């Protein structure tokens, strides 16, 4: 659809611009301000230039070591949950019933974990995993496994990952299901006439058609897992030790726990920069996919 150029449209966008600028630009300026200064309390600030940034990116210092450790931990976490959630989501989407009342029931159950407050998600798994009162912990321990997410690093990781799979796989599944539903029946009929195998149908029809939604799903899951705070905070509190301390948890510890404003601000800016870069990729992919689809439609129109 061709859009007309109209600068007056800015008046329609102005309210959004003001509201978001108030919530985003003002606070971000404070962060930039803090990141260049040091404070010893009493509201006295000292110019520190790029000192915090140097320290942040140098793994030999305390701050740099903590930041980089939590960053790698977070990236590893994102990689693991993507590797589990994407294939599982696709399989679940392919398993959805085709029509009838059961579709609605399945959709509602799938969406349920997505709508639970994040701290309650943490609470649910905290209770569910406890060896004394939780079903999961109790069953695992009575099977002879010594499972305890409070004291064992590996168990804490497993719990956080299973919790995230529980919480967010539905998002991937729902997006893939939306993609699958947009495939016209004619495609399947053509495949049947050609005698295509189940795998060939998946590879040649379903996967290409799900490309776009899958990209959205992967990017959204990456972003959200990269910012994860509440759920692991409630379940493990970042522990045992620092083994499940992700970037957001580290940042809140420094900012609100120790009130180290300069360090926290420098960390925030680097963190935000990473997010904005990924966000730019996300935006480009989304808008390009939109253009491609439009081009395909246009070509069909020409025929």
């Amino acid at each position, binding site marked *: 659809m061709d859009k*007309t*150029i*109209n600068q*007056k449209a*800015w008046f*329609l*966008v102005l*309210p*959004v*611009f003001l*509201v*978001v600028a108030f*919530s*985003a630009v*003002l606070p*971000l300026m404070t*962060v930039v301000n803090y990141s260049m200064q040091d404070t010893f309390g009493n509201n006295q600030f000292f110019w520190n230039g790029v000192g915090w940034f140097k320290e942040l990116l140098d793994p030999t210092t305390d701050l740099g070591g903590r930041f980089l450790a939590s960053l790698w931990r977070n990236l590893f976490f994102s990689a693991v949950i993507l590797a589990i959630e994407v294939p599982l989501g696709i*399989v*679940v989407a*392919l*398993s*959805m019933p085709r029509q009838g009342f059961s579709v*609605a029931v*399945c959709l*509602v*159950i799938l*969406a*349920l*974990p*997505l709508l*639970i*407050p994040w*701290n*309650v998600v943490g*609470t*649910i798994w905290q*209770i569910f995993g406890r060896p004394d*009162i939780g079903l999961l912990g*109790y069953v695992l321990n009575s099977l002879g496994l010594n499972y305890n997410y409070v004291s064992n690093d590996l168990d804490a990781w497993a719990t956080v990952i299973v919790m995230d799979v*529980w919480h967010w796989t*539905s998002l991937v599944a729902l*997006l893939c299901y*939306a993609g699958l539903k947009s495939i016209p029946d004619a495609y399947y009929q053509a495949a*049947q006439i050609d005698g295509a195998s189940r795998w060939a149908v998946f590879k040649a029809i379903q996967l290409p058609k799900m490309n776009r939604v899958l990209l*959205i*799903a992967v990017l959204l899951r990456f972003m959200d897992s990269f*910012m994860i*705070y509440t759920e692991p905070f409630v379940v493990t509190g970042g522990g045992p030790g620092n083994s499940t301390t992700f*970037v*957001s948890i580290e940042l*809140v510890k420094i*900012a*609100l726990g120790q009130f180290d404003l300069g360090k926290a601000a420098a960390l925030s800016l680097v*963190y*935000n920069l990473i*997010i904005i870069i990924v*966000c*730019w990729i*996300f*935006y480009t992919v989304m808008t390009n996919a939109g253009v491609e689809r439009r081009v395909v439609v246009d070509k069909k129109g020409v025929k």
Partner: protein
Amino acid sequence: MHSIPGRRVILSLFLAFLLLPIYWLVNMSFKTNGEIVSTMTLWPHQPTIANYMRIFTDESWYSGYINSLKYVVINTIISISVALPAAYAFSRYRFLGDKHLFFWLLSNRMAPAAVYALPFFNLYSAINLFDTPWAVALAHCIFNVPLAVWILEGFVSGVPREIDETAFLDGYSFPRFFVRILVPLIASGIGVAAFFCFMFSWVELLLARTLTSVDAKPISAVMTRTVSAAGMDWGLLAAAGVLTIIPGALVIWFVRNYIARGFALGRV
């Protein structure tokens, strides 16, 4: 052709995996603490509603729900009312910096709440909004306004331009066209956007907890406080958790066909 072999088994297993932890929470909420700690029972042997009664009668508990609802509702109203005109502008017009603005909005939707926790604390303390529902409502705008713009833009683009043009030819002024024609046409879109604003504001904890202390304490913060208070009142905690799930679970039925669209920022 649509489905894969063994799909019923896969789907049932996955749905069971989703429901089991929730069932356990509901199960715990109907037990007494004595039963929770002493025995492992798959269903409550001495069912009790004492946990729920305590939440409904103790003000420090039920005011948490009211506080949460206050800022969630304020936030939803602000988000939708500012996002509607913007969505129309993005859908119909090209203007200076439109693409950059759209990207900037998206980047705010993605920004980690942890980055903003401290500056928000300073900002809202400075303008005397700290510990009011307004502080949380405005803070949550940072991710809900962009979300609403993205979702609504998709729905507005689904309305043919000819409708706008016909209305203007018929002598409708812009505000009148907007309220009388466009809004009814995208009513379902507004419902979906409102649902997602409501939801994302409802599930967020970090900002809501940072920006409140006593008067406007949301339910999620009340829950975290109780966890660390003297001893663990598991039954009460479970009951409070169940009550936070209910609003989402009730409305989900009406938006089930739009859920994917909302989570993908209107881009499916």
